[in-house]
């Protein structure tokens, strides 16, 4: 070991209060640039510190049976603390932000990841961020889409991958209320289609977002591409819509 590296190691060790072995590996990683090494070390340390705090936050709501889970009651408490009622659509947004796997449930790892992404470590920060996001959610299309897409698996029963069309309709009415112009027609269509007794495919759910965007520029679907990649259920809807709602005879 060269004298200067030895000095550097000693210095790093002193600064960060780490054993010399750890100090050496940090320094090596940053090519003995002690300033850079210290910076990254501090960042990691603070991250670890933050995560520790998030875990503590999680623990405030965790289930008694399973330490890695916030159960239904815990969720109710969490929502309440954040000023949101269980029936409010905002719960969907919060579930998305905190990566809830199923409605009314949070997992430790995902919760921590979610909070880190939002850069919050305590309840009051979380509440602030959630309030901000709720405001943003009212107008931001990207966020709206993300929440929309996230809601499908969220609303599925635990262990299931598909969503019954009936439940899906309720969810659509919450999520797309003022966004999808043809929502009422779409719902009527679903209710009259045999699909009502089955599940609504996730692909159709996802594509419906783009379809709703499409209908903004073409409310009568006059240039709808039947040869395109739209799911067949949407194809069928367009036929239904043009024929029964707009009364345009088929070509």
């Amino acid at each position, binding site marked *: 070991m060269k004298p200067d590296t030895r000095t550097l190691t000693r210095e790093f060790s002193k600064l960060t209060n780490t054993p010399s072995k750890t100090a050496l590996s940090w320094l090596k990683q940053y090519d003995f640039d002690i300033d850079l090494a210290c910076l990254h070390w501090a960042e990691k340390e603070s991250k670890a510190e933050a995560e520790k705090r998030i875990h503590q936050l999680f623990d405030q709501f965790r289930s008694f049976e399973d330490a890695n889970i916030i159960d239904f009651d815990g969720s109710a408490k969490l929502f309440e603390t954040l000023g949101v009622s269980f029936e409010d659509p905002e719960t969907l947004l919060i579930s998305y932000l905190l990566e809830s796997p199923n409605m009314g449930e949070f997992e430790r790892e995902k919760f921590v990841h979610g909070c880190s992404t939002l850069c919050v470590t305590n309840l009051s920060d979380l509440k602030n961020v959630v309030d901000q996001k709720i405001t943003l959610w009212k107008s931001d299309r990207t966020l709206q889409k993300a929440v929309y897409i996230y809601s499908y698996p969220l609303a599925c029963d635990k262990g299931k991958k598909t969503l019954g069309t009936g439940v899906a309709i309720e969810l659509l009415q919450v999520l797309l209320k003022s966004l999808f112009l043809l929502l009422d027609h779409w719902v009527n269509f679903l209710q009259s289609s045999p699909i009502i007794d089955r599940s609504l*495919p996730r692909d159709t759910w996802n594509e419906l977002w783009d379809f709703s965007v499409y209908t903004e520029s073409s409310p009568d679907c006059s240039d709808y591409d039947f*040869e*395109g990649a739209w799911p067949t259920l949407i194809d069928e809807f367009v036929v239904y819509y043009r024929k029964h709602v707009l009364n345009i005879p088929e070509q």
Partner: protein
Amino acid sequence: MQRSSKVKIRAPRKFTSNQVDFIAHWDVLHNAVKDIFNKSTSQLSFEELYRNAYTLVLHKHGERLYRNVKEVLKTRLENEVAPSIAGSFGSLLETENWSYVRNRDDFSLSMRKREAAILFLSNLVNAWKEHLVSMQMISSVLKYLDKVYSKSSGVMPIYDSGLMIFRDSVLLSSLEIGQKSGICILTLVFLERIGDSINRPLVNSCLDMLNSLPSESKNESLYDVLFTPKFLEMTRMFYQGEAQQNFEIYDVLEYLQKTNLRLEEEKERAQKYLFTKVSFALLSVVEKELLTEQIDNLLAKPISGFFAMLDSYNLEGLSSIYNMLSIVELGIPSIKKFFAAYISEKGRFINGSLALNKEDPQGNSQVAKVSTASSWVTKVLELWDKLREIVVRSMKEDRYVMNSLSDSFSNFINAYSRAPEFTSLFIDDNLKRDLKGRSEESVEKTLQNSVVLFRFLSEKDVFEKYYKTHLAKRLLNNRSISDDAELSMIGRLKQEAGNVFTQKLEGMFTDMRLSKELLHEYKGNYDQESGKPPFDLNVSVLASSFWPIDLVPEKISCDFPEYLKPSIDHFSNFYFSKHTGRKLIWYPSMGSADVRVQFKKRKHDLNVSTIAVVILLQFQALPGSESLSYEDLLQRTKIEPGDLKRNLQSLACAKYKILLKEPKSRDINAGDRFMFNDNFTSNMARLKISTIAQVRVEDDGERKRTMEKIDESRKHQADACIVRVMKDRKTLEHNQLVAEVTRQLSSRFQPNPIMIKRRIEALIEREYLQRSADNGRIYEYLA
């Protein structure tokens, strides 16, 4: 180089222009020119005149001389020549209507017109020729002028200049002699077209004149400007009229003959006295008016048109239609169009005529229906043979017409939903043995033709399904003509549709061969073991994946009578000792048996189905006249009700009544009772009681089930195909994927894009695929 001796260069002697008397010299020349014009040149001295001109040019009077000569020429042509020519233009020629169907002039009028035109043209041509002679002389005299003056000051030689003056002062003057000459030529051509003979050399000379003179602008001659456009327009009007008239008067063949003559005539005309450069444009006009404009009318003409010729197999006529129409660009496409229309009409007729048959009363419908299939196929093939022959023999096997033939056939064949079934039935009919009155070659040829039909089928998978069923019946009932014939048929199908298509069919043959070998071995063993077997057991061991066998529990549930059981078990033991880990399922509804039955009067050998044997054996143990009810039989044998009914029907309700049924009726109903008919008599010792295993047209219910199975199998094929494509390409845009899958599947069937889309969605659901995050139209393969 040697140094030249010193030479003093002197300045040239100077002449001043006024040293020479221009007027005097010019007068001499002027008079000479006049003499030339008057053709009184005998007194002239060429040498003297040349010297005069020479002197004038030498004394820098070139320009003046040139100008004066031109002036003299112009004056003469304008004042003397032009008016005299123009004066000979008769008023008869003034207005002309060039249509072929104008009111015909009477003979004398056209003769007068001809004479007038010839007179005018002769005058013009003579004047031109004289002018040329004069100009030759003048230009010889003024050679020095050309040599020195014309060249250096960049004007035309006097000869050319003289021709230009003729052009401007005669042809293009206000007297419009050029235009008039055009009218005269057109008059003559017109007269020739309607049958007169005319003075061709005169016309040719006149055109030659026009062609030798450049027009005022552009790079064209007077011929191009004064003659060509009017000539083509006149030709157009003429043939437009003629086409209409000929179309009404003549039938199609005559019309085409006339047209051909006209084309030859115009070709010759262009060669002989017009100029070849107009030939192409001229022929295009004639072809357009006589052919292109009339194609559809001609082809559609009733009685003598295209359809009629096809109907009457008029090869000569069709050949001349083809030859004539292929001259013009739109000809072949029109033939294609009409050909397609003809085929689809005939096809609709064939398909329609069978739809009518279907409404025949139900009785005895089975036989009628197989013959329906055959007659459909035969009709289609007859039509194909006929039309193909027509294309080969009268249309030089034109590739485009041939394609349209194939496409149209494929369209109407596939419009007929029973086509795959009927095709297979037809082949079945021809591959069955004991067909009387048909030579091997004719069967061979028919089979060859049926491959043509197969080629057109877009739903090859449906065909395969039926073919398997029919083949199975042929093989199991031993009704094929020969293995060779079967294999050669399969070979043909393989050639058309590839290895994969015939794999299962070949598998069926292998099974039959292996079964024979196995049976041989089995019988050898049996003989050694315990002497004669109670009866001869023939077993075909078939792989369920190759054979079209319904392995539904009802179909295979059959309680074999005690008499049969030992043999069955014996064979099973033998089989399992050879092949471990296999499963044998006995399938009674496809086998047959020969049984000897003792009736009161005599013994008869009956050939019946396996199920019928099982039924008959129920009566063997039965005392005398006791009867069994349908329910008894059902319960004792556990045979599937449909099979049981069908077999009872053939035993009790058909020609040979081995069983008696109470009450008597055609159908088997619950509660019916059966008893053995001891009093049965027949003249024949051997009787065939055919029931099942008869190849026949499916009824609607069966057909629906078949189609459901096929749909199911198509879904699997589409799934497999989509996954295969995506695995290979990883990411692919929706339409490209649909196109590729359609392409790959089309050798089996014509997949519908919506179906493919549904399969894609199903695969997304099952997480074989996903949509790309940034473009929903792009799919990604998930490994």
